[in-house]
């Protein structure tokens, strides 16, 4: 069984800003353990002759020339924002000082 427990899931949920009930934490701890185990089997299949890779496609150096392309207007940029002010995205107070 993989080393992922309920506390790990609670920690991850907090880091990812996902609110989870006690029940969900219990269930996810079990499910994630299975998933992690399944992923682990990949490393069993890959022998020493298979190098570690960060990317599935054997490509390198995909570059763009340094030429200015399209931009949005401020109006377009903000069109999906829940709230805005002075052409800027408006977000709630950042520090929780209650």
């Amino acid at each position, binding site marked *: 069984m993989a080393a992922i427990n309920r506390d790990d899931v609670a*920690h991850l949920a907090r*880091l*990812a*800003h996902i609110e989870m009930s006690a029940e969900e934490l219990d269930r996810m701890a079990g499910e994630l353990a299975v998933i992690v185990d399944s992923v682990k089997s990949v490393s069993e299949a890959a022998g020493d002759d298979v190098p570690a890779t*960060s*990317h599935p*496609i054997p*490509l*390198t*150096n*995909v*570059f*763009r*020339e*340094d*030429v*200015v*392309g*399209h*931009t*949005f*207007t*401020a109006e377009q*940029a*903000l069109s999906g924002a829940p709230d805005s*002010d*002075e*052409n*800027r*995205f*408006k*977000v*709630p*107070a*950042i*520090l929780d*000082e209650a």
Partner: protein
Amino acid sequence: MSTDATLSFEEAMEKYDPVLGFEVHVELNTRTKMFSSAPNVFGDEPNTNVNEVDLGMPGVLPVVNRVAIESSIKIGLALNCKIAESCTFARKQYFYPDTPKNFQTSQYEDPIAYDGYLDIELADGTIFRVEIERAHMEEDAGKLTHMGGAAGRIQGADFSLVDYNRSGVPLVEIVTKPIEGAGSRAPELAKAYVAAVREIVKNLGVSDAKMERGNVRCDANVSLRPHGRERFGIRSETKNVNSLRAVEHAVRYEIQRHAAVLDAGNPVIQETRHWHEDTRTTTSGRPKSDADDYRYFPEPDLVPIVASREWVEELRATLPEPPAARRKRLQADWGYSDLEFRDVVNAGVMDEIEETIAAGASASVARKWWMGEIVGRAKNADVDPGQLGVQPATIVELNRMVEDGKINNKMATEVLDGVLAGEGTPAEIVEKRGLAVVSDDGPLLEAIDAALAAQPDVADKIRAGKLQAIGAIVGGVMKATRGQADAGRVKELILAKLGVEG
């Protein structure tokens, strides 16, 4: 806001040994962003230099800017780093409104440049080697403006406004190894190190390097340990120290604060500190503990960067003369002594003197004007000498007028003031203010006769060959002509009058 206790810097140094570390972020001056074709321009209307990539919209594909990679390699080479044969990007996850993606695209395990060093010259000429751990590529974040609180601070703000124009601007983060052995020179070294990095990236032409615009930003790590102990103390990281003076002050302040904490028998808390220029102190920021868990993983949307040795050597061949080598060359060319040259460098007028010489002044004339006249005026005006508005051509013109005997040195400084006050060119000011050396011998001879008559004993001394006494007579003539006489000509005339060989 509570004020932290501090020890005096001297007492802190007596008891503890500081260890430093720096993370310097350099914004590259590419035309476009790191991963998007939106323009990389400072100061435009909010949220107009953005497209779907910068806003982190679903399904978008970032593409790496070739010039940003080349600039990063150049920085690595200039810092004497090794350049990775192959490296990757990684996602650094965190939740903060300065990124709309909830991650920053950065590098993690395999930075593009690593294992370098920089030799830092301190004000007295001491060379201190700072080891570079790595220089990695990443993207800048958006700019937050905190509203409703005091003085734009995050503390007490009601809400924040976000401009993503800066989001995605290419950054190179330069990280030092722990710097040991600086002792009481730690604050000076801190300033000199950041100045050296700034100078290098400016010289490479890869960054505008304006600290006031945030092109070069420094996070300063400070820890203390008792003298003789090898293990490092617990460090604090002071963020956003955005001027060279502030770097020096922040390191000094943190040393004094840590020393007081340790002296009271308490542990230093590992945390981020915010630098406040107004009070020259730091305050506690968000604690590090939680933020350390960035859950890096390889960026699936970007393929690895492979820097062939040919490419690296091509880039190396384009590097300009390093600033330290340039200084050596200029000092030799100009024939300044070590002390003279160091004063010039510390006053921040080396580039200006170089330009003035290029405009036609001799090395000694350029130094005389910049060090003797302009640096002092800049200090009074509280600006950098280069920003005072003195053009090299002005100095050349002033000097020519003095050499031609049109005006004397005293008048020349007056004309300089006129130029700085916006009254026109030196020639116009001489005309307007009626400043011209009296070169007609008639009035001079009258004044000389009067001065000799007033001081007959001095006249006798000169006749007897004590030529140094002539100053008193020259002084009398200058007074009588309200400083408008050519002192050289006056001297000649006095000697001729008394029949003495000069």
